[in-house]
């Protein structure tokens, strides 16, 4: 049987058109990720404020953001936010997407930071105190340099997860590869080829990233095991 649905002519016609959106897609991913990495710290430190009521509010705000679909959040920021009198103002699609996806993923990133910080031995805090570090230096020189490296593989995974969520931004008009493919499809009544291209692009970009992160994970694990071995040595000596 002749496979009439697929046309290589269409494929190669659509390819440059779809690729026009690649810069936006990659740019949006990186911007969102940087936003999430930065804003993640805000959550982490807000949660550390020693006030029960405040803590409760922060925890539930994070929970709320995580339990709501990112698509709803995007629509809210792009369509609903400007309508709120007083505080609302309109943002362009790209900025809305950065804010929406960035905040959504920052709650996950914040949790990862928290797990990293909690894995730092209590003795490190006490030694920082005994050596009279300021609070800022304690975080900068002692705690974060130990807390963050073990979380790098996890943070990397979220980079890929977020990359795959970025096409959502096409729904509010960010002209990434997804919107370009959709536009091509609508104009030429040919969706199969452009959407296949989108799939291939995601595969080509995510797979190497995943391999890289896997390597990083192995590296971090061996490092972590070494530390674990040292720790169990100490315990042995106590007994």
């Amino acid at each position, binding site marked *: 049987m002749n496979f009439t649905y697929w046309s290589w002519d269409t494929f190669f016609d659509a390819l440059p058109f779809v690729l026009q959106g690649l810069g936006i897609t990659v740019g949006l991913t990186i911007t969102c990720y940087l936003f999430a990495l930065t804003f993640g710290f805000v959550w982490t430190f807000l949660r550390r404020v020693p006030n029960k009521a405040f803590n409760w509010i922060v925890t539930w705000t994070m929970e709320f953001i995580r339990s709501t679909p990112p698509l709803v959040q995007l629509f809210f920021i792009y369509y609903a936010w400007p309508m709120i009198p007083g505080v609302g103002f309109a943002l362009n699609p790209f900025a809305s997407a950065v804010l929406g996806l960035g905040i959504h993923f920052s709650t996950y990133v914040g949790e990862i930071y928290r797990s990293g910080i909690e894995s730092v*031995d209590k*003795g490190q805090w*006490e030694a920082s*105190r*005994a050596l*009279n*570090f300021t609070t800022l230096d304690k975080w900068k020189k002692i705690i974060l340099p130990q807390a963050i490296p073990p979380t790098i593989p996890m943070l990397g995974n979220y980079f890929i997860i977020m990359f795959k969520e970025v096409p959502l931004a096409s729904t509010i008009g960010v002209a990434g590869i997804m919107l370009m493919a959709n536009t091509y499809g609508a104009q030429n009544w040919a969706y199969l080829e452009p959407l296949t291209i989108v799939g291939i692009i995601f595969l080509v970009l995510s797979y190497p990233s995943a391999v890289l992160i896997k390597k990083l994970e192995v590296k971090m694990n061996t490092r972590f095991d070494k530390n674990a071995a040292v720790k169990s*040595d100490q315990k042995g*000596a106590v007994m």
Partner: protein
Amino acid sequence: MSEPIVKFQDVHKSFGDIKVLKGINLDIKPAEKVAVIGPSGSGKTTIIRMLMTLEEPTSGDIIVDSTNLWKMEKKGKMVKANEKHLRQVRGDIGMVFQHFNLFPHMTILENCMTAPIHVKKENKEEVRERAIQMLDRVGLGDKLNNYPSQLSGGQKQRVAMARALVMRPKIMLFDEVTSALDPELVGEVLEVIRDIAKHDDMAMVLVTHEMDFALDIADKVLFLDEGVIAEQGTASQVIEHSTNERLQGFLHRFRR
């Protein structure tokens, strides 16, 4: 008689319902070497942890160099000290921990340099020189660029001492510094402490189970029992002439 550099005045400490310290009164003179002995759970470590500002006393006053450590004056009233006040007073005190608490992401030289540079804002080259000198003194001059994970327990503890000494404290606290070590590594650490005790003129407070060692270097021995100082005096007073039965029992277990 010189003024005490550390004074405890009726200091109490509870953890929840458990009263760990029940009224500690104590004077430590500059350059005095004080050994704190006693059964585990008697509150020995809590005493120096309060002095290092790692635990807050439930009541009472701790005076360091004529300044109240945990309280400060505000509008004519004594209120709980803030971090700024604590930092000011804490600067005179150094501590060595049972589990070393070296910074694993730094070489041992960096471990010794980071606080003088970032906390005391000293000149980096001077600090480097002093840190190398200090690491030489504790016998680790050939390991400057090693990481803590590459050292034995005894070596780590000697680095921890160098790290505290580089800060030039007026008071050094030692919290059971040999308890986490393999028996064959205890000697090298005690040697370093003995050297410090002999040559440096800072006050030292040692919480220890190394009885013979403590008695050897200490000017004053405190026997802590059930949250109070049950006996204190010179080593010979406490060991040989005390009639305190619990102290006798305690010592007996150590000197079979």
